[in-house]
Each structure stands twice: as structure tokens, then as C-alpha cells.
């Protein structure tokens, strides 16, 4: 109830950036198609959580959304621009408005935390050193890492690395934020802290957020909308409440944490290994 009320309050504020609209997106690794004609929308200022098991294609989808993978077909609209059909220069211009937090943090090991956060500001803005220093302190304060400017990434705990990575992703005041497994590998308390941080950023800046995760508790806490991906297809989409109420077998299996049935038949096992249809019975 309280959460619904909070959503209502938030939705009355104006989102600060564009939404995302994905149309018939296909991604191939060589001959193999990973994503099969995927379409979905993320309205401006909302948080979409992409759920899915290991190998479902959810990380490939996220990498494609930020331009790290090239789609073989389809469109990715960010505002009124098709990200999938841009020149390199246009893509770089749009990327300055995106922030990405990687699963591993991906902080540059040879730079201090402060230098990591300052990097995009140094490279893309004409701001002087002292202004950048103030902005770095501000960003680190937003993620609860005040005073850690001079620490090296190797000196930080897993949760602190994720926070520092979020501070770096927020450095350019992005219009869209992308998170790859933000709470993976963290203990429940630290993971809850990261969830709270994402909610805080969402409330404070009203930016469009896309989160890839398989942590159900996190997903239901931070999502406005969810999609469940399985074998490169969207098998369910809707609000958290709609997904909770869904009777779709794959959704139920995922949400109820039901293991895959053990493969006992020789043909089923071969099909699982090769990914091909079983040969006709003789």
C-alpha cells in the first residue's frame, strides 16, 4: 500500500529523460540467434526489471541496449532516436546521456575511486579541475561513499565497488541508467542497501532505469514493470503485481523457484546438449 502511494507521488513528477522502445529486436552470435524478435517499452522515468535465468539472453539484451552488441535486426528507440541505426558519432553523443553499472563494477583498477568518477567529466566536459573535484565528492556522497575518493578499487568491498560504479555511471547526470546484476554476489544486507540506493536515485532524479537481475526480492522491490526472458523470448511482461498473479507456467516456475525436471530420456538429454530438435523415432 505504502509502495503504491509512493509510486503515485513519484509519477506526478516530470521524468527527466526519454523512455525506451524496443521493436522486433534480434541479436545473433554468429549463426546462433540469441534474442528472437523482442519488443517492449519502458516509459520515461520508470524502472524496468529484466528477469531471466542464466543463459536466457537477458545480459545480451542489456548489452544491446547500451550498444555493446550490434542487433541483427530491429529498432531501439531512445526518445525519438533509433539507437540501432545510428552512426558512431551519433551513438557516442547518445552514450554520454547513458549510465551503465556493470556486474563486476568494472572500475579502472589503476585509478582511484575519485579518478574513476571524474573520468567521463574530464573527457567530455570543459569543467575545470576544482569543479570536477566538487562533482566527484557530490556523486560519491549520493551513493554513500563520502571520503573514499583516494581509495583504490582493490581496497573496496564488493558492495562499495558497486556503489562506486553507480557513482561513475551517474557522473554525467544521465537520462537513462542501466544495471547488470546490481546485487549479484553480495550478502543480503549489502544487496538491500544497493536496492535502496537504486530506489533513492529513481526518486531523486526520475530517470529511466533498466535493471537485469535474477534476484526476485530485489526485482519486486525496485520494478515498475518487469519482463521475463526465457531462451531469447519474452514469456511474460507487466507490472510486478501482474507477474505475481500470472499463471503462465514458466513465470510460476521462475517465481516459485521450481527446478527444471531432470532429463532421464536419452533423446531429451541429447536435445539439451545439442539444442536441436530430436530425430524422428525409428
Amino acid at each position, binding site marked *: 500500500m505504502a509502495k503504491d502511494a509512493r509510486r503515485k507521488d513519484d509519477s506526478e513528477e516530470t521524468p527527466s529523460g526519454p523512455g525506451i522502445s524496443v521493436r522486433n529486436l534480434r541479436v545473433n552470435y554468429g549463426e546462433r540467434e540469441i534474442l528472437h524478435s523482442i519488443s517492449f517499452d519502458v516509459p520515461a522515468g520508470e524502472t524496468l526489471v529484466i528477469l531471466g535465468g542464466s543463459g536466457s539472453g537477458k545480459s545480451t539484451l542489456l*548489452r544491446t541496449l*547500451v*550498444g*555493446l552488441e550490434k542487433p541483427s535486426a530491429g529498432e531501439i528507440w531512445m526518445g525519438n532516436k533509433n539507437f540501432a541505426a545510428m552512426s558512431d558519432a551519433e551513438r*557516442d*553523443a547518445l*552514450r*554520454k546521456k*547513458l549510465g*551503465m553499472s*556493470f*556486474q*563486476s563494477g*568494472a*572500475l*579502472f*583498477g*589503476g585509478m582511484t575511486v575519485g579518478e574513476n568518477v571524474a*573520468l*567521463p567529466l574530464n*573527457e*567530455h566536459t570543459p569543467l575545470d579541475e576544482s569543479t570536477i573535484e566538487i562533482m566527484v565528492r557530490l556523486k560519491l556522497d549520493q551513493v554513500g561513499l563520502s571520503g573514499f575518493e583516494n581509495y583504490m578499487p582493490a581496497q573496496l568491498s564488493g558492495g562499495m565497488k558497486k556503489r562506486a560504479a553507480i557513482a561513475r555511471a551517474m557522473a554525467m547526470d544521465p537520462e537513462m541508467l542501466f544495471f547488470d546484476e546490481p546485487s549479484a554476489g553480495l550478502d543480503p544486507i549489502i544487496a538491500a542497501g544497493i536496492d535502496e540506493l537504486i530506489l533513492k536515485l529513481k526518486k531523486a532524479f526520475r530517470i529511466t532505469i533498466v535493471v537485469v537481475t535474477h534476484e526476485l526480492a530485489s526485482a519486486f522491490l525496485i520494478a515498475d514493470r518487469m519482463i521475463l526472458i526465457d531462451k531469447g523470448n519474452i514469456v511474460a511482461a507487466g507490472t510486478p503485481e501482474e507477474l505475481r498473479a500470472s499463471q503462465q507456467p514458466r513465470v510460476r516456475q521462475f517465481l516459485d523457484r521450481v527446478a527444471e525436471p531432470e532429463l532421464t530420456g536419452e533423446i531429451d538429454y541429447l536435445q539439451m546438449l545439442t539444442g536441436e530438435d530430436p530425430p524422428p523415432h525409428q
Partner: protein
Amino acid sequence: MALAYNIGEATIEGLAYVGSLARLTGGAARSIFVDPFRGRKFRLSRAVHQAMSVGVEAVPIVSLISFFVGTILALQGAYQLRKLGAMQLVAAAVAIVITRELGPLMTAIMVIGRSGSAFAAEIGTMKVNEEIDALETMALEPVHFLVAPKFLAMILMMPCLTTWADFMGVLGGGFFGVMSAGFTWGSYFRATMDALVLRDILTGLVKSLMFGIVITAVGCHEGFATGLGSEEVGRSTTSSVVKSIFLVIVVDLIFTAIFYFTAPS
């Protein structure tokens, strides 16, 4: 038939590899020499940092090895020249072999071991840790950000290191000359200066510049080609050393042949 097919396939792969090195080098050259005039920042501080690591920090080991190589050359030269009663030619032999060949080559081998492998390991580790992806999502081109400063540092530092290696090699030869061949330090350096012409030193420096380009291109290329998993970083580091040594020898052969056939008779 299978042999012809294998040779053809290996040739195409080799040419494709050289092509990708050329593309990387071209991208870095554009970042260094063209982009700054188009309003794109090129941070000299990164190149200076690399130059310290590639050049200045290599001085002690380059000095020591070059000195020893110079002494060994003098010893080997003296072994033959003594029989001809021409010990006074030791200084000339050392000077020419060091400046034209062994100075640049030994420096390149040491730089491959210190820096080429480090480039591959650094970029490979960044790739495994998703740091290269992070650069791209921040609209920072990895070639511009990572490779170009290494190229600039290398093309500035290789000739400097080679010049220093030449000097230390001659000094090593002089050490033997003064101790065992009847030279004084003054007569040894006079004999060295009389034997050398500017072309000897310049051909060595041109080669060192080309070696620097090859070492950087191979090191960075192998780093970017690193697969998933930390053991892949070790593989790409080893591969960068082996390929760099091979390509440096090939480039050495090509340029030595060019200098030989274009030398005034």
C-alpha cells in the same frame, strides 16, 4: 592438395593479422596526429606516464644488458682479430655492430619483455573485467584512450633508449679494449668515432622506431583479443611476446635489406 590448402590458409591468416595490426596503428596515429586538430582531447599526461614506464624505468636493465653485449662483442671480435694482428679494429667492429644491429634489436627484445607483455596483460585484464566495455559505454574509444598514449610513448622512447643502448654497448666494448686490448679510453672512443658514420646510427634509430610500432601494435592487439577468463590473459601475454619477437626480426630483416641495397657504394 591439403598442404597447398594449409599454406594458403596460413598465409591469409597471417595477412589478416598484419592488416589488423595496421588498422590499430592507423587508429592510434589518427588519435595522436589528427584528432587534436578536430577538437578531440588527447591527454599528453597519459603518454608521459607511459613514457616513464616504457622508457625511463627501462634504463637500468637496458644499460646493464647493452654494456654486457658490448663487452661480449669485443671479446668475440678480439678472438678473431687477434689472429690477424688487427686488435685495433675491435672498437670499429663493436661500434658498427652495436649501432646498426644489436643496439636496436637488444633494446627491442627488452622492451618486448617489459612493456609489450605489460600492454597485453593490462588490456587483457581490462577486457576480462569489463573495463573495455565500460569505456565504450562512456563514449570513450578504447584505441584513443588506451592505445594512442602507448604508441606515442613508444615512438618517442624507443629511439632514445636505443641511443642510450648504443652508448652503453660501446662503453662495454671499451671496457674490454682498455683492460685487455691496449686501448686507453680516449683512443677507444676516437677509434669508435672514426669508424662510425651518421648513417650507421640513423639506420639503427629508424629500425628502433619501427620496432616500437610493432611491439605496441602486437601487445595491444593481443590484449584486445583476450577471451573470457583470467587464464586467457596469460595466453595473450605469452602470445604477444612470441609474435612481437618474430615480427621484430622480420621487420629487422626487411629494413636491413632496404638499407643494404640503398647504401651508397
